[in-house]
């Protein structure tokens, strides 16, 4: 089991000189830091900054380090930070297995066996050849989670990942996601406006002002 740490040092994002969001935190292995706040409080901007997609209209100061290495200016694909969106966003032109394979590092040995194993883990054995469009909402969400994990990130950002699920699925997915993140020892940052998400994550909670 690997363990990683994500440091946000004096992060301060402004637009037109006006402060939008500021944060200073360390997220340890397997830990989930929840950031809550109303719309417009800069949650998504914070995620964009951490993932490496910040629009040039914003100015950002501070430093992001992953396992002690400064990643603030690295391009998104070299940061090692994985992302889970509201929507599962399974690539519609790839099969389920193709989606999982897409995220795997190039020299991963034995890709097919790992894919089968991952599908097994979430109760989707034999789904590899399926067209993602034929999956149910819950199934898609599970494939998206597995795609994230198979890409071997060293930290994870969660952008309201449960908000579009039905109520009965929501609790199930929360458990699944947080269990897997804990097990993988990944530091995670969850952005949400749902208190139940925060409770399920079980970690620290930061509330952003309006």
């Amino acid at each position, binding site marked *: 089991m690997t363990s990683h740490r994500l440091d946000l040092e004096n992060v301060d994002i402004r637009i037109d000189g006006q402060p939008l969001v500021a944060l200073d935190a360390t997220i340890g292995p397997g830990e989930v830091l929840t950031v809550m706040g109303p719309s417009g409080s800069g949650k998504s901007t914070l995620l964009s900054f951490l*993932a490496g997609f910040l629009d040039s209209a914003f100015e950002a100061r501070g430093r992001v380090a992953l396992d002690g290495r400064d990643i603030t200016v690295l*391009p998104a694909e070299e940061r*090692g930070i994985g992302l889970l969106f509201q*929507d599962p966003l399974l690539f519609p*032109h790839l099969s389920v297995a193709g989606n999982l394979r897409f995220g795997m*590092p190039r020299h991963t040995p034995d890709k097919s066996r790992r894919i089968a194993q991952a599908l097994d883990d979430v109760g989707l054995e034999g789904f590899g050849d399926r067209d993602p*469009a034929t999956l149910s909402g819950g199934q898609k969400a599970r494939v998206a989670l597995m795609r994230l994990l198979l890409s071997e990130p060293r930290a994870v950002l969660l952008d309201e990942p449960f908000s579009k699920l039905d109520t009965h699925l929501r609790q199930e997915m929360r458990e699944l996601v947080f269990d897997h993140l804990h097990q993988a020892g990944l530091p995670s940052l969850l952005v949400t406006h749902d208190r139940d998400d925060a409770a399920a994550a079980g970690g620290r909670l930061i509330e952003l002002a309006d």
Partner: protein
Amino acid sequence: MLLRLTPALIVTLLVGPIVAGVGMVLLPAFGYLPALGGDALSLAPWRALFAQPGLAHSVAVSLTSGLVTTAVSLAIVLLFLAGTSGSRLDRWLRRLVSPLLSVPHAAAAFGLAFLIAPSGLVARLLSPGITGWERPPDWLIVQDPWGLSLMAGLIIKEIPFLLLMSLAALPQLEVPRRVAMARSLGYRPTLAWLKVVAPALYPLIRLPVYAVIAFASSVVDVAMILGPTLPPTLAVSILEWFNDPDLSHRFLASAGAVLQLGVTLAALAGWWGLECLARRLGRRWIDAGQRRRGEGCLRRIGKSAMLATTLAAGLGLIGLALYSVAGFWRFPDALPDTLTPQHWLGTLPSLGGPVSTTLIIAASATLLALLLALAALENEQRSGKYPAEGRLLSALSLLYLPLIVPQIAFLFGLVVLLESLEARARMALVIFGHLLFVLPYVFLSLAEAYRRFDPRWSQLARTLGRSPNATFWRIRLPMLLAPVLTAAAVGLAISIGQYLPTHLLGAGRITTVTTEAVSLASGANRRVIGVWALVQASLPLLGFVIAIGVPRLLWARRRGLQGAP
């Protein structure tokens, strides 16, 4: 990085030749053309131009056909879209967009002329039974002095274009949500669409609309077939002066070309004025808050006008197809006396060369255009710099210059320029000439889909460890395959239809189906014209079939991509 240079490259590639071409026409327009003894600048060509009988009439017809064609086409497209209810007829009409777009202008014009002429298909179907005519009546319908038949011919061709451009832009407007909102406030669906969708749609299709104005005010081939003759439209007159055996008419023709540029610009300015007026009236109409009045009427107008133009185009083509296999066909017989494969058999052996040349040129120009358009759009994505919606003055909108500046105003000048540069690679020049016109349309067709593409797909791919290049090749391109192929089909259609650039830049040596069709059309043999018009229409149609078919085949097992834009 190469990508970053693309916008600059595109602008140089397109603007350079046009500016140079216009320059080379300006000189003779002011009397300077040493090869014909014009050694000094003078206003003589302009005096000669303004002394031409009927010039004012020519200019007036060109100007009004630019404005009326555009206004009517746009109104029909908007009313049709507003009243569209997903009925079978609606879907059928929408599906006909691409095939109609692939019919060359001249072919559609021939078809319409044969449909509505006193000896045409309609008169034949009604005679002698209903009309009692044994001889065609001596009525002035086609080539009327007011240019009405010319405008009708242009409207038939411009509607599919504006409809395709609108259908491409609509998805980003979240139409169902907007209409639902307005309906919940008590508006009938058609009025809801016109009041909440149309004002948002117009800025997105403004450039295509401007292209229609420019085209309709300067078109040559359609005007020769359907336009007035005494005098003809300005563009046709200019071509006649350029082709006059008396070489001193070249000065006059050059001045005319400059005047044509002015007429087109005046039409654009006039449209801009109409836009302001429409905005003011439209706002008052929206503010007035009628929710029901006129809705049924508007819907019926839109639908029946769309149906009528589609039928006219279709029947015209059927007429041409009939002629291509017709033996002697006496008036008022509805069908030819005999059918014969003779016209096709005579043509087939000479088809191979022109068809392969046409395809080589069209494929090269389209491929180059796609590369440039994709590079520019990808650069936009990566740099995060988007042109503001509907804004006209961003550098890249110079891309549309070739659609605005009439061909006749710069191509002759461009030929002289290229000659003096000793550029003799005819094939390359022709491909380049086509690129001038293909690129804007390809860009126009592709840009909306590309810019609308959900950025989260690419972000996701990046966080999964893929480089921007891999993201482009493995995510964006395959997911945008359908719009890319549609843009390619539009590009092919545009290239296949080009006459002047092929003829002038190729020194006549490059023979395409269109140059062949035009030179044969001068023989006025309607049977031969029918054969070539069908050949000319079938090539771009092939492109559209591929554009629709390949994604369906490729993504047969991927439901998520079916019905994608």
